[in-house]
Protein backbone atom coordinates (compact mmCIF):
# COMPACT_ATOMS: atom_id res chain seq x y z
CA UNK A 1 0.00 0.00 0.00
CA UNK A 2 1.11 3.52 -0.72
CA UNK A 3 2.35 5.31 2.35
CA UNK A 4 1.63 9.02 1.88
CA UNK A 5 4.46 10.15 4.15
CA UNK A 6 7.09 8.12 2.34
CA UNK A 7 5.62 9.33 -0.93
CA UNK A 8 5.84 12.93 0.22
CA UNK A 9 9.51 12.50 1.03
CA UNK A 10 10.29 10.72 -2.23
CA UNK A 11 8.50 13.36 -4.28
CA UNK A 12 10.64 15.93 -2.49
CA UNK A 13 13.78 13.87 -2.98
CA UNK A 14 13.08 13.62 -6.68
CA UNK A 15 12.86 17.40 -6.91
CA UNK A 16 16.14 17.66 -5.02
CA UNK A 17 18.02 15.25 -7.23
CA UNK A 18 16.80 16.93 -10.41
CA UNK A 19 17.88 20.23 -8.85
CA UNK A 20 21.37 18.76 -8.44
CA UNK A 21 21.74 18.61 -12.21
CA UNK A 22 19.52 21.52 -13.18
CA UNK A 23 21.03 23.90 -12.38
CA UNK A 24 23.49 22.65 -9.69
CA UNK A 25 25.96 20.56 -11.64
CA UNK A 26 25.48 22.73 -14.71
CA UNK A 27 26.58 25.83 -12.80
CA UNK A 28 29.38 23.98 -11.04
CA UNK A 29 30.88 22.91 -14.34
CA UNK A 30 30.09 26.13 -16.24
CA UNK A 31 31.95 28.20 -13.66
CA UNK A 32 35.04 26.02 -14.07
CA UNK A 33 35.49 26.54 -17.79
CA UNK A 34 36.41 29.63 -19.78
CA UNK A 35 33.77 32.26 -20.44
CA UNK A 36 33.68 31.43 -24.12
CA UNK A 37 32.56 27.87 -23.43
CA UNK A 38 30.29 28.33 -20.47
CA UNK A 39 27.02 28.09 -22.35
CA UNK A 40 28.11 24.90 -24.07
CA UNK A 41 28.57 23.28 -20.68
CA UNK A 42 25.13 24.37 -19.51
CA UNK A 43 23.75 23.09 -22.78
CA UNK A 44 25.42 19.71 -22.39
CA UNK A 45 23.95 19.21 -18.93
CA UNK A 46 20.52 20.41 -19.94
CA UNK A 47 20.25 18.46 -23.17
CA UNK A 48 21.52 15.33 -21.46
CA UNK A 49 18.85 15.76 -18.80
CA UNK A 50 16.14 15.93 -21.45
CA UNK A 51 17.42 13.09 -23.58
CA UNK A 52 18.14 10.69 -20.73
CA UNK A 53 14.61 11.30 -19.42
CA UNK A 54 13.14 10.17 -22.69
CA UNK A 55 15.43 7.16 -22.94
CA UNK A 56 14.65 6.21 -19.37
CA UNK A 57 10.98 6.02 -20.28
CA UNK A 58 11.67 4.19 -23.52
CA UNK A 59 14.01 1.44 -22.29
CA UNK A 60 16.28 2.62 -19.49
CA UNK A 61 13.95 1.94 -16.62
CA UNK A 62 13.00 -1.44 -17.97
CA UNK A 63 16.58 -2.56 -18.60
CA UNK A 64 17.46 -1.49 -15.08
CA UNK A 65 14.54 -2.61 -12.98
CA UNK A 66 12.32 -5.01 -14.89
CA UNK A 67 12.63 -8.72 -14.28
CA UNK A 68 15.31 -10.09 -16.51
CA UNK A 69 18.55 -11.99 -16.35
CA UNK A 70 21.24 -11.59 -13.71
CA UNK A 71 22.96 -9.12 -15.99
CA UNK A 72 20.28 -6.90 -17.40
CA UNK A 73 16.57 -6.27 -17.00
CA UNK A 74 13.98 -7.27 -19.55
CA UNK A 75 11.83 -5.14 -21.80
CA UNK A 76 8.54 -5.67 -20.02
CA UNK A 77 8.40 -2.06 -18.92
CA UNK A 78 9.74 -0.50 -22.11
CA UNK A 79 7.71 2.66 -22.76
CA UNK A 80 6.55 2.19 -19.17
CA UNK A 81 4.21 -0.55 -20.32
CA UNK A 82 2.49 -2.35 -17.49
CA UNK A 83 2.85 0.49 -14.99
CA UNK A 84 -0.55 1.16 -13.48
CA UNK A 85 -1.53 4.65 -12.41
CA UNK A 86 -2.05 3.46 -8.86
CA UNK A 87 0.56 0.72 -8.69
CA UNK A 88 2.82 0.50 -5.67
CA UNK A 89 6.44 -0.24 -6.41
CA UNK A 90 7.22 -3.73 -5.18
CA UNK A 91 9.13 -3.82 -1.92
CA UNK A 92 8.41 -0.15 -1.19
CA UNK A 93 5.53 1.93 0.03
CA UNK A 94 5.60 4.46 -2.80
CA UNK A 95 3.83 4.55 -6.16
CA UNK A 96 5.57 3.09 -9.19
CA UNK A 97 5.39 6.50 -10.86
CA UNK A 98 7.41 8.04 -8.04
CA UNK A 99 10.00 5.27 -8.06
CA UNK A 100 10.44 5.66 -11.80
CA UNK A 101 10.83 9.44 -11.48
CA UNK A 102 13.21 9.21 -8.55
CA UNK A 103 15.44 6.74 -10.36
CA UNK A 104 15.21 8.82 -13.52
CA UNK A 105 16.93 11.69 -11.79
CA UNK A 106 19.87 9.36 -11.09
CA UNK A 107 19.94 8.32 -14.73
CA UNK A 108 20.11 12.02 -15.60
CA UNK A 109 22.92 13.06 -13.33
CA UNK A 110 25.22 10.12 -13.98
CA UNK A 111 25.90 10.83 -17.65
CA UNK A 112 25.87 14.55 -16.85
CA UNK A 113 28.77 14.02 -14.44
CA UNK A 114 30.92 12.96 -17.38
CA UNK A 115 30.50 16.39 -18.99
CA UNK A 116 33.42 17.44 -16.81
CA UNK A 117 35.73 15.16 -18.76
CA UNK A 118 35.11 16.50 -22.24
CA UNK A 119 34.34 20.21 -21.91
CA UNK A 120 35.65 22.82 -24.34
CA UNK A 121 36.43 20.47 -27.21
CA UNK A 122 33.68 17.93 -27.94
CA UNK A 123 31.06 17.96 -30.68
CA UNK A 124 27.55 18.48 -29.43
CA UNK A 125 26.23 15.55 -31.44
CA UNK A 126 28.85 13.33 -29.85
CA UNK A 127 27.65 14.39 -26.40
CA UNK A 128 24.11 13.35 -27.22
CA UNK A 129 24.95 10.11 -28.98
CA UNK A 130 27.57 8.88 -26.54
CA UNK A 131 25.42 9.70 -23.49
CA UNK A 132 22.48 7.83 -24.98
CA UNK A 133 24.46 4.72 -25.78
CA UNK A 134 26.16 4.89 -22.41
CA UNK A 135 22.86 5.00 -20.56
CA UNK A 136 21.74 1.86 -22.29
CA UNK A 137 24.96 -0.15 -22.33
CA UNK A 138 26.70 0.95 -19.15
CA UNK A 139 24.32 2.59 -16.73
CA UNK A 140 21.27 0.35 -17.15
CA UNK A 141 23.12 -2.98 -16.79
CA UNK A 142 25.18 -1.89 -13.80
CA UNK A 143 22.06 -0.52 -12.14
CA UNK A 144 20.45 -3.90 -12.71
CA UNK A 145 23.43 -5.70 -11.20
CA UNK A 146 23.33 -3.63 -8.02
CA UNK A 147 19.79 -2.38 -7.46
CA UNK A 148 17.71 -4.40 -9.88
CA UNK A 149 18.26 -7.79 -8.36
CA UNK A 150 21.21 -8.73 -10.57
CA UNK A 151 24.30 -10.74 -9.76
CA UNK A 152 25.98 -8.22 -7.49
CA UNK A 153 22.79 -7.70 -5.51
CA UNK A 154 22.59 -11.44 -5.06
CA UNK A 155 26.15 -11.47 -3.75
CA UNK A 156 25.08 -8.88 -1.18
CA UNK A 157 27.00 -5.90 -2.47
CA UNK A 158 26.33 -2.75 -0.46
CA UNK A 159 25.76 0.47 -2.41
CA UNK A 160 23.23 2.65 -0.70
CA UNK A 161 22.91 5.51 -3.13
CA UNK A 162 25.29 4.98 -5.98
CA UNK A 163 28.98 4.67 -5.15
CA UNK A 164 29.18 1.95 -7.77
CA UNK A 165 26.16 2.68 -9.93
CA UNK A 166 26.75 6.40 -10.25
CA UNK A 167 30.26 7.42 -9.30
CA UNK A 168 32.36 4.44 -10.33
CA UNK A 169 30.67 4.10 -13.70
CA UNK A 170 30.89 7.81 -14.50
CA UNK A 171 34.39 8.15 -13.06
CA UNK A 172 36.12 5.48 -15.08
CA UNK A 173 34.23 6.33 -18.25
CA UNK A 174 35.38 9.93 -17.81
CA UNK A 175 39.02 8.85 -17.96
CA UNK A 176 38.44 6.83 -21.09
CA UNK A 177 36.65 9.78 -22.64
CA UNK A 178 39.46 12.14 -21.77
CA UNK A 179 42.06 9.84 -23.24
CA UNK A 180 40.24 9.04 -26.46
CA UNK A 181 39.18 12.63 -27.02
CA UNK A 182 42.61 14.06 -26.30
CA UNK A 183 43.72 17.14 -24.44
CA UNK A 184 42.44 20.64 -24.80
CA UNK A 185 44.73 22.90 -26.83
CA UNK A 186 47.24 24.28 -24.35
CA UNK A 187 46.77 21.64 -21.65
CA UNK A 188 48.47 21.29 -19.23
CA UNK A 189 50.58 24.43 -19.36
CA UNK A 190 48.34 27.05 -20.87
CA UNK A 191 44.90 26.45 -19.49
CA UNK A 192 42.95 29.30 -17.94
CA UNK A 193 41.60 29.39 -14.42
CA UNK A 194 37.87 28.95 -13.79
CA UNK A 195 36.04 31.88 -15.32
CA UNK A 196 33.64 32.27 -12.38
CA UNK A 197 34.60 30.72 -9.05
CA UNK A 198 31.48 32.20 -7.50
CA UNK A 199 29.37 30.18 -9.93
CA UNK A 200 31.29 27.05 -9.03
CA UNK A 201 30.44 27.61 -5.39
CA UNK A 202 26.77 28.26 -6.08
CA UNK A 203 26.63 25.05 -8.07
CA UNK A 204 28.36 23.20 -5.25
CA UNK A 205 25.84 24.52 -2.72
CA UNK A 206 23.00 23.26 -4.87
CA UNK A 207 24.71 19.91 -5.23
CA UNK A 208 25.10 19.76 -1.48
CA UNK A 209 21.46 20.43 -0.62
CA UNK A 210 20.29 18.27 -3.50
CA UNK A 211 22.47 15.42 -2.33
CA UNK A 212 20.20 15.06 0.69
CA UNK A 213 17.54 13.92 -1.75
CA UNK A 214 20.06 11.60 -3.37
CA UNK A 215 21.22 9.89 -0.21
CA UNK A 216 18.38 10.32 2.27
CA UNK A 217 15.90 9.73 -0.54
CA UNK A 218 17.57 6.40 -1.22
CA UNK A 219 16.03 5.12 2.00
CA UNK A 220 12.81 5.18 -0.04
CA UNK A 221 10.99 6.16 3.13
CA UNK A 222 10.79 9.00 5.62
CA UNK A 223 12.29 7.00 8.42
CA UNK A 224 15.27 6.86 10.76
CA UNK A 225 17.50 5.51 8.00
CA UNK A 226 16.74 8.58 5.91
CA UNK A 227 17.45 10.81 8.87
CA UNK A 228 20.78 9.19 9.63
CA UNK A 229 21.71 9.17 5.94
CA UNK A 230 21.20 12.90 5.82
CA UNK A 231 23.24 13.48 8.95
CA UNK A 232 26.22 11.38 7.86
CA UNK A 233 26.13 12.86 4.36
CA UNK A 234 26.38 16.31 5.83
CA UNK A 235 29.19 15.44 8.22
CA UNK A 236 31.28 13.86 5.51
CA UNK A 237 30.81 16.84 3.19
CA UNK A 238 31.73 19.34 5.89
CA UNK A 239 34.85 17.50 6.96
CA UNK A 240 36.14 16.79 3.47
CA UNK A 241 35.71 20.49 2.65
CA UNK A 242 37.77 21.49 5.64
CA UNK A 243 40.45 18.94 4.82
CA UNK A 244 40.84 20.26 1.29
CA UNK A 245 40.87 23.85 2.54
CA UNK A 246 43.52 23.03 5.10
CA UNK A 247 45.79 21.29 2.61
CA UNK A 248 45.65 24.27 0.26
CA UNK A 249 46.19 26.69 3.10
CA UNK A 250 49.29 24.87 4.26
CA UNK A 251 50.73 24.26 0.80
CA UNK A 252 49.98 27.56 -0.88
CA UNK A 253 48.96 29.93 1.86
CA UNK A 254 45.71 30.56 0.04
CA UNK A 255 42.59 28.50 0.70
CA UNK A 256 40.55 28.84 -2.47
CA UNK A 257 36.85 28.82 -3.17
CA UNK A 258 37.25 26.27 -5.93
CA UNK A 259 39.33 24.12 -3.59
CA UNK A 260 36.97 23.98 -0.64
CA UNK A 261 33.98 23.08 -2.79
CA UNK A 262 35.91 20.37 -4.57
CA UNK A 263 36.44 18.92 -1.12
CA UNK A 264 32.71 19.10 -0.57
CA UNK A 265 31.95 17.10 -3.67
CA UNK A 266 34.62 14.56 -2.74
CA UNK A 267 33.03 14.13 0.70
CA UNK A 268 29.58 13.76 -0.79
CA UNK A 269 30.58 11.28 -3.47
CA UNK A 270 32.49 9.15 -1.00
CA UNK A 271 29.76 8.87 1.61
CA UNK A 272 27.17 8.04 -1.05
CA UNK A 273 27.48 4.23 -1.06
CA UNK A 274 27.76 4.19 2.73
CA UNK A 275 25.19 6.80 3.66
CA UNK A 276 22.45 4.45 4.79
CA UNK A 277 24.78 2.14 6.64
CA UNK A 278 27.28 4.11 8.72
CA UNK A 279 26.94 6.33 11.77
CA UNK A 280 28.37 9.77 12.52
CA UNK A 281 31.81 8.39 13.42
CA UNK A 282 31.94 6.48 10.16
CA UNK A 283 31.10 9.74 8.45
CA UNK A 284 33.99 11.48 10.16
CA UNK A 285 36.37 8.82 8.86
CA UNK A 286 34.95 9.01 5.36
CA UNK A 287 35.15 12.80 5.38
CA UNK A 288 38.79 12.77 6.44
CA UNK A 289 39.83 10.07 4.00
CA UNK A 290 37.95 11.45 1.02
CA UNK A 291 39.25 15.00 1.38
CA UNK A 292 42.84 13.81 1.45
CA UNK A 293 42.62 11.01 -1.07
CA UNK A 294 40.76 12.90 -3.75
CA UNK A 295 43.18 15.79 -3.33
CA UNK A 296 46.06 13.46 -4.06
CA UNK A 297 44.17 11.84 -6.92
CA UNK A 298 43.67 15.20 -8.61
CA UNK A 299 47.39 15.89 -8.35
CA UNK A 300 48.37 12.53 -9.75
CA UNK A 301 45.96 12.65 -12.68
CA UNK A 302 47.06 16.16 -13.62
CA UNK A 303 50.78 15.91 -12.95
CA UNK A 304 51.75 12.31 -13.47
CA UNK A 305 49.39 10.92 -16.05
CA UNK A 306 48.65 14.23 -17.75
CA UNK A 307 45.16 13.08 -18.66
CA UNK A 308 42.90 16.01 -19.42
CA UNK A 309 39.91 14.83 -17.44
CA UNK A 310 39.26 18.53 -17.42
CA UNK A 311 37.10 18.98 -14.36
CA UNK A 312 38.43 15.98 -12.42
CA UNK A 313 35.49 13.65 -12.76
CA UNK A 314 37.56 10.57 -12.12
CA UNK A 315 39.71 11.98 -9.33
CA UNK A 316 36.72 13.28 -7.42
CA UNK A 317 33.73 11.13 -8.29
CA UNK A 318 35.50 7.96 -9.36
CA UNK A 319 38.04 7.83 -6.57
CA UNK A 320 35.46 9.01 -4.05
CA UNK A 321 32.79 6.55 -5.07
CA UNK A 322 35.19 3.61 -5.08
CA UNK A 323 36.71 4.56 -1.75
CA UNK A 324 33.35 4.79 -0.08
CA UNK A 325 32.28 1.49 -1.56
CA UNK A 326 35.40 -0.24 -0.29
CA UNK A 327 35.19 1.35 3.17
CA UNK A 328 31.56 0.59 3.85
CA UNK A 329 32.16 -2.90 5.24
CA UNK A 330 34.66 -1.61 7.77
CA UNK A 331 32.47 1.20 9.03
CA UNK A 332 29.12 -0.55 9.11
CA UNK A 333 29.53 -2.45 12.41
CA UNK A 334 26.97 -1.59 15.06
CA UNK A 335 29.83 -0.87 17.44
CA UNK A 336 30.80 2.06 15.22
CA UNK A 337 27.25 3.37 15.06
CA UNK A 338 26.51 1.61 11.80
CA UNK A 339 23.53 -0.50 10.84
CA UNK A 340 25.52 -3.72 11.01
CA UNK A 341 26.49 -6.33 8.48
CA UNK A 342 23.98 -8.91 7.36
CA UNK A 343 23.69 -11.93 9.65
CA UNK A 344 26.66 -14.23 9.28
CA UNK A 345 28.67 -11.99 6.98
CA UNK A 346 32.16 -11.04 8.13
CA UNK A 347 33.96 -7.79 7.39
CA UNK A 348 36.38 -9.64 5.12
CA UNK A 349 33.63 -11.32 3.20
CA UNK A 350 31.84 -8.03 2.70
CA UNK A 351 35.06 -6.37 1.62
CA UNK A 352 35.61 -9.08 -0.97
CA UNK A 353 32.15 -8.55 -2.39
CA UNK A 354 32.73 -4.81 -2.50
CA UNK A 355 36.01 -5.30 -4.34
CA UNK A 356 34.33 -7.57 -6.86
CA UNK A 357 31.62 -5.00 -7.39
CA UNK A 358 34.05 -2.17 -7.98
CA UNK A 359 36.40 -4.13 -10.20
CA UNK A 360 33.63 -5.61 -12.33
CA UNK A 361 32.13 -2.17 -12.78
CA UNK A 362 35.48 -0.65 -13.70
CA UNK A 363 36.12 -3.29 -16.32
CA UNK A 364 32.66 -3.24 -17.82
CA UNK A 365 32.30 0.55 -17.85
CA UNK A 366 35.79 1.10 -19.15
CA UNK A 367 35.64 -1.34 -22.02
CA UNK A 368 32.12 -0.56 -23.10
CA UNK A 369 32.78 3.19 -22.92
CA UNK A 370 35.76 2.73 -25.16
CA UNK A 371 33.70 0.85 -27.71
CA UNK A 372 30.88 3.36 -27.57
CA UNK A 373 33.34 6.18 -28.13
CA UNK A 374 34.69 4.50 -31.21
CA UNK A 375 31.14 4.00 -32.48
CA UNK A 376 30.35 7.64 -31.78
CA UNK A 377 33.51 8.76 -33.50
CA UNK A 378 32.63 6.72 -36.55
CA UNK A 379 29.08 8.00 -36.70
CA UNK A 380 29.32 11.70 -35.89
CA UNK A 381 32.93 12.48 -34.98
CA UNK A 382 34.17 13.37 -31.54
CA UNK A 383 36.13 16.54 -31.65
CA UNK A 384 35.42 20.05 -32.91
CA UNK A 385 37.89 21.77 -35.20
CA UNK A 386 40.82 23.66 -33.66
CA UNK A 387 39.35 26.88 -34.99
CA UNK A 388 36.06 26.37 -33.18
CA UNK A 389 37.98 25.33 -30.10
CA UNK A 390 39.97 28.53 -30.08
CA UNK A 391 36.97 30.74 -30.80
CA UNK A 392 34.77 29.06 -28.27
CA UNK A 393 31.88 26.65 -28.49
CA UNK A 394 29.27 29.11 -27.32
CA UNK A 395 29.31 31.31 -30.36
CA UNK A 396 30.31 28.75 -32.92
CA UNK A 397 28.18 25.80 -31.90
CA UNK A 398 25.25 27.40 -30.14
CA UNK A 399 25.28 30.86 -31.69
CA UNK A 400 25.24 32.72 -28.38
CA UNK A 401 27.46 34.57 -25.95
CA UNK A 402 27.24 33.92 -22.23
CA UNK A 403 27.65 37.55 -21.29
CA UNK A 404 26.34 40.52 -23.24
CA UNK A 405 26.80 43.13 -20.58
CA UNK A 406 28.76 45.72 -22.52
CA UNK A 407 28.20 48.77 -24.68
CA UNK A 408 25.60 50.27 -22.40
CA UNK A 409 22.82 48.16 -23.79
CA UNK A 410 22.93 49.59 -27.30
CA UNK A 411 22.27 47.28 -30.18
CA UNK A 412 25.33 45.11 -30.00
Amino acid at each position, binding site marked *: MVNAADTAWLLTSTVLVLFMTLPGLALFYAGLVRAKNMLSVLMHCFAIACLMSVLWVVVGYSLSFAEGSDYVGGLTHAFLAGIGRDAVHAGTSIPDSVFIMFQMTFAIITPALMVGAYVERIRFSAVLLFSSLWLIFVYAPVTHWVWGGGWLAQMGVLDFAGGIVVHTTAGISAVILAIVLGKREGFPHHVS*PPHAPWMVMVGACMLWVGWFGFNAGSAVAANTTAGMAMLVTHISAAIASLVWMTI*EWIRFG*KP*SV*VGIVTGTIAGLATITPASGFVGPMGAVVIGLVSGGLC*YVAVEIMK*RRFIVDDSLDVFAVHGVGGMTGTLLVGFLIPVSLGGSGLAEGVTVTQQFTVQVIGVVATLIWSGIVSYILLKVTEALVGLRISPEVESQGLDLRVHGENGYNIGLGGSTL
Partner: protein
Amino acid sequence: MKLIIAVIQPFRLDAVREALTGIGINGLTVTEVRGYGRQRGHTEIYRGAEYAINYVPKLKLEIGVDDSRVAEATDAIAKAARTGKIGDGKIFVLDLLSAVRIRTGEDGSEAL
Protein backbone atom coordinates in the same frame (compact mmCIF):
# COMPACT_ATOMS: atom_id res chain seq x y z
CA MET B 1 47.47 70.09 -26.11
CA LYS B 2 48.58 66.66 -25.07
CA LEU B 3 46.90 63.37 -24.33
CA ILE B 4 48.33 61.68 -21.27
CA ILE B 5 47.84 57.92 -21.08
CA ALA B 6 48.64 56.45 -17.68
CA VAL B 7 48.47 52.76 -16.85
CA ILE B 8 48.22 52.37 -13.06
CA GLN B 9 47.46 49.87 -10.33
CA PRO B 10 43.67 49.77 -9.84
CA PHE B 11 43.83 50.51 -6.14
CA ARG B 12 45.72 53.77 -6.76
CA LEU B 13 42.83 55.28 -8.71
CA ASP B 14 41.38 57.23 -5.81
CA ALA B 15 44.78 58.68 -4.96
CA VAL B 16 45.51 59.71 -8.54
CA ARG B 17 42.13 61.31 -8.89
CA GLU B 18 42.68 63.37 -5.77
CA ALA B 19 46.09 64.43 -6.97
CA LEU B 20 44.68 65.59 -10.29
CA THR B 21 41.79 67.41 -8.71
CA GLY B 22 44.35 68.99 -6.42
CA ILE B 23 46.07 70.64 -9.36
CA GLY B 24 42.81 71.61 -11.01
CA ILE B 25 42.52 68.93 -13.67
CA ASN B 26 38.88 67.99 -13.89
CA GLY B 27 38.39 65.62 -16.73
CA LEU B 28 39.36 61.99 -17.07
CA THR B 29 38.47 58.80 -18.86
CA VAL B 30 39.18 55.42 -17.26
CA THR B 31 39.37 52.02 -18.95
CA GLU B 32 39.89 48.63 -17.41
CA VAL B 33 42.83 46.96 -19.05
CA ARG B 34 45.20 44.11 -18.42
CA GLY B 35 48.85 44.17 -19.12
CA TYR B 36 52.34 43.09 -18.34
CA GLY B 37 55.75 44.67 -18.28
CA ARG B 38 58.41 43.78 -15.76
CA GLN B 39 55.62 42.39 -13.61
CA ARG B 40 54.98 38.97 -15.13
CA GLY B 41 51.66 38.03 -13.53
CA HIS B 42 51.14 35.57 -10.76
CA THR B 43 49.88 32.05 -10.29
CA GLU B 44 46.51 30.91 -9.12
CA ILE B 45 45.94 27.54 -7.55
CA TYR B 46 42.96 25.38 -8.36
CA ARG B 47 42.53 21.82 -7.31
CA GLY B 48 46.22 21.38 -6.87
CA ALA B 49 47.09 22.81 -10.25
CA GLU B 50 48.81 26.15 -10.70
CA TYR B 51 47.73 28.46 -13.47
CA ALA B 52 49.95 31.24 -14.76
CA ILE B 53 48.07 34.51 -14.89
CA ASN B 54 50.02 36.44 -17.49
CA TYR B 55 48.04 39.65 -17.58
CA VAL B 56 47.66 41.79 -14.50
CA PRO B 57 44.54 43.97 -14.13
CA LYS B 58 45.33 47.67 -14.43
CA LEU B 59 43.43 50.86 -15.07
CA LYS B 60 44.25 53.08 -17.99
CA LEU B 61 43.60 56.81 -17.59
CA GLU B 62 43.36 59.15 -20.55
CA ILE B 63 43.56 62.84 -19.83
CA GLY B 64 43.54 65.64 -22.31
CA VAL B 65 45.55 68.56 -20.94
CA ASP B 66 46.88 71.89 -22.06
CA ASP B 67 50.54 71.92 -23.08
CA SER B 68 51.36 74.03 -20.07
CA ARG B 69 50.02 71.46 -17.63
CA VAL B 70 51.68 68.33 -18.97
CA ALA B 71 54.70 68.23 -16.71
CA GLU B 72 52.71 69.05 -13.62
CA ALA B 73 50.09 66.43 -14.47
CA THR B 74 52.51 63.60 -15.19
CA ASP B 75 54.34 64.41 -11.98
CA ALA B 76 51.13 64.37 -9.96
CA ILE B 77 50.08 61.05 -11.47
CA ALA B 78 53.47 59.46 -11.01
CA LYS B 79 53.66 60.52 -7.38
CA ALA B 80 50.16 59.37 -6.51
CA ALA B 81 50.44 56.09 -8.36
CA ARG B 82 53.84 55.07 -7.06
CA THR B 83 54.09 52.29 -4.50
CA GLY B 84 57.67 51.47 -5.41
CA LYS B 85 56.83 47.89 -6.20
CA ILE B 86 57.01 46.24 -9.55
CA GLY B 87 53.82 46.77 -11.54
CA ASP B 88 53.34 50.45 -10.81
CA GLY B 89 52.78 51.19 -14.47
CA LYS B 90 53.62 53.62 -17.20
CA ILE B 91 52.78 57.12 -18.35
CA PHE B 92 52.74 57.92 -22.05
CA VAL B 93 52.28 61.37 -23.59
CA LEU B 94 50.96 61.96 -27.10
CA ASP B 95 50.36 65.05 -29.09
CA LEU B 96 46.74 66.14 -29.31
CA LEU B 97 45.77 68.02 -32.47
CA SER B 98 42.35 69.10 -31.36
CA ALA B 99 39.71 68.67 -28.69
CA VAL B 100 35.99 69.41 -28.87
CA ARG B 101 33.33 69.54 -26.16
CA ILE B 102 30.39 67.86 -27.81
CA ARG B 103 27.73 69.65 -25.81
CA THR B 104 28.78 73.18 -26.73
CA GLY B 105 31.03 72.73 -29.71
CA GLU B 106 33.84 74.64 -27.91
CA ASP B 107 37.24 73.48 -28.99
CA GLY B 108 40.89 73.76 -28.05
CA SER B 109 41.86 74.24 -24.41
CA GLU B 110 38.35 75.49 -23.69
CA ALA B 111 37.12 71.99 -24.27
CA LEU B 112 39.33 70.26 -21.74
